[in-house]
């Protein structure tokens, strides 16, 4: 297993040539920065992640996060808490968020590049730091001013954790089947009761506070997705002065034993075992699904990015091993010698396949992140609308294809290692096991495919996909000229 090296040469190739940082930095929102600063921040982040976060990947897999049934607490692996404190202390979590709540106000693309490094370094760790983004997005778009002031600054900084509580035992891909109840108390608050499963970092020891966003039904809610509301359920109630108050009635009652991402605790959460967990409504009742959709693109982009990131890490290991390992004589090598396996054409084909897929994934994901910055900040409303439609169209590609390729590329790394690739001590099986979750969560890849065909192709009567395909076709003459 090689040390992780952030692939700055390849990242900067995309930033310098396939996206347009100069244009981004002309937007009002990003005038405070410039391409050189964006790249300098990326280099600094790369150094931090490689030194502090990457070395914890293996220990995370070996120890995992462990639930204590006596106290319903969760202990993260050795070193995670100290690394998380450094991550928060350096301000890395807030880089792409609204400066009004303590963020850096940088482009989403900048956050995506840093997220690639973090996830390559340590996929489990990265989930603590990045899953909170969905909760921040949702609160930022739909929370009241008071809610935003109470919760956002410490979520943006990473001092507080955040979770999304959707799935229930009988409500997985079919979110509309969920049964968790929310009963209004007459004082503006609600009492929440129910069980949620598969809650990533639902409980842990990295932060003093965790803000759970919970989907539930009010007593007279209509059935299905039209009757879902979204609530803030803090682990500790927050006092008027911002300090932490009473422990809320929410517990992690167990942690799953998983195939991969073992350091990321996947929790069964029980709300309201005593007298109901205190929850605060976000926006209006029965609008929860609509609010979820506002964060869904970013959440799916982040998971697609995991496919790229874990592929990159596995590829680096494979390239290093293929240079060390000597077997057989490659064509042209002196008789009686054995060659590093990287000189064998079939091994080289595997490495080239990995490299080509990784570069394609990185291009697609960075271009989609750039398009989402345009959709949010371009001065021309028509361009904003077109870019938003383009993001919508490409999200199933980012999520569905890049996570499938993450599995493919990590599997190729196992193959390059040969017999050692099947042995846990080599470190390579972890990448393959870690990669395998990404095609499943955040909308299975089957759902991504149906989303593309059923929801995305019909946008604007097929106009957006036609425009996109004609843009692709326009490259043909340029390629022929070359």
């Amino acid at each position: 297993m090689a040390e992780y090296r952030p692939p700055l040469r390849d990242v900067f190739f995309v930033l310098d040539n396939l996206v347009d940082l100069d244009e981004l930095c002309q937007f009002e929102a990003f005038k405070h920065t410039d391409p050189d600063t964006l790249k300098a921040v990326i280099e600094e982040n790369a150094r931090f992640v490689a030194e502090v976060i990457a070395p914890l990947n293996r220990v995370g897999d070996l120890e995992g996060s462990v639930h204590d049934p006596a106290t319903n607490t969760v202990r993260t692996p050795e070193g995670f808490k100290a690394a998380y404190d450094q991550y928060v202390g350096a301000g890395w979590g807030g880089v792409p968020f609204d400066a009004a709540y303590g963020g850096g106000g940088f482009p989403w693309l900048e956050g995506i590049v840093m997220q690639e490094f973090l996830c390559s370094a340590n996929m489990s760790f990265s989930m603590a730091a990045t899953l909170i983004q969905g909760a921040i997005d949702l609160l930022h778009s739909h929370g009241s001013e008071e809610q935003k002031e109470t919760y956002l600054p410490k979520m943006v900084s990473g001092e507080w954790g955040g979770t999304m509580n959707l799935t229930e035992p009988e409500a997985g891909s079919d979110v509309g089947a969920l049964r968790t109840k929310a009963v209004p108390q007459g004082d503006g608050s609600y009492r929440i009761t129910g069980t949620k499963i598969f809650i990533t970092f639902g409980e842990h020891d990295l932060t003093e506070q965790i803000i759970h966003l919970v989907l539930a039904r009010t007593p007279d809610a209509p059935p299905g997705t039209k009757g879902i509301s979204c609530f803030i359920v803090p682990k500790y109630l927050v006092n008027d002065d911002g300090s932490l108050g009473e422990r809320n009635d929410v517990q992690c009652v167990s942690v799953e034993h998983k195939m991969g991402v073992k350091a990321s605790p996947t929790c069964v959460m029980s709300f309201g075992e005593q007298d109901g967990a205190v929850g605060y409504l976000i926006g209006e009742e029965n609008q929860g699904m609509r609010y979820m959709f506002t964060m869904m693109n970013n959440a799916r982009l982040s998971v697609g990015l995991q496919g790229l990131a874990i592929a990159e890490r596995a590829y680096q290991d494979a390239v290093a091993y293929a240079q060390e390992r000597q077997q057989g004589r490659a064509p042209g090598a002196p008789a009686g010698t054995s060659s590093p396996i990287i000189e064998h054409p079939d091994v080289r084909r595997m490495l080239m396949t990995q490299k080509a897929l990784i570069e394609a994934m990185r291009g697609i994901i960075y271009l989609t992140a750039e398009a989402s910055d345009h959709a949010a900040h371009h001065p021309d409303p028509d361009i904003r609308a077109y870019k938003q439609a383009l993001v919508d169209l490409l999200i199933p590609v980012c999520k569905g294809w890049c996570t499938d390729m993450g599995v493919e590329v990590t599997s190729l790394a196992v193959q390059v290692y040969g017999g050692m690739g099947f042995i846990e001590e080599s470190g390579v099986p972890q990448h393959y096991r870690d990669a395998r979750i990404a095609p499943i969560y955040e909308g299975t890849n089957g759902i991504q495919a149906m989303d593309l065909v059923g929801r995305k192709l019909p946008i604007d009567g097929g106009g957006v996909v036609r425009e996109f395909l004609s843009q692709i076709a326009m490259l043909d003459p340029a390629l022929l000229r070359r």
Partner: protein
Amino acid sequence: MLADTTSWIMHHGIEDPRNALAGATPYLRMFSLVTAGWVMARQALVAKHALDEGTGDAEAMHAKLTTARFFCEQILPQAQGFGPAVTAGYADVMGVPVSQLAV
């Protein structure tokens, strides 16, 4: 090819949603490969331009060009192979009864 398959799945998916649902995954793979091909073609143009102009690190640009060509000539052609799986519709996907799937 992708444009034809796209219009097939849009039209036949409206006729009977089972056509769209049965072909969605091979369609996503095909659409993604073409999108990836587009990105790699842009990469090739940038790298070729840099090599022609003598700008940038020549060895790195040559690697970018070669990797893009490898993708477009050796991986991208798989996209065509997914076409028949999309335009076959749902008949064979759903045609073997559950009793024959179960052992």
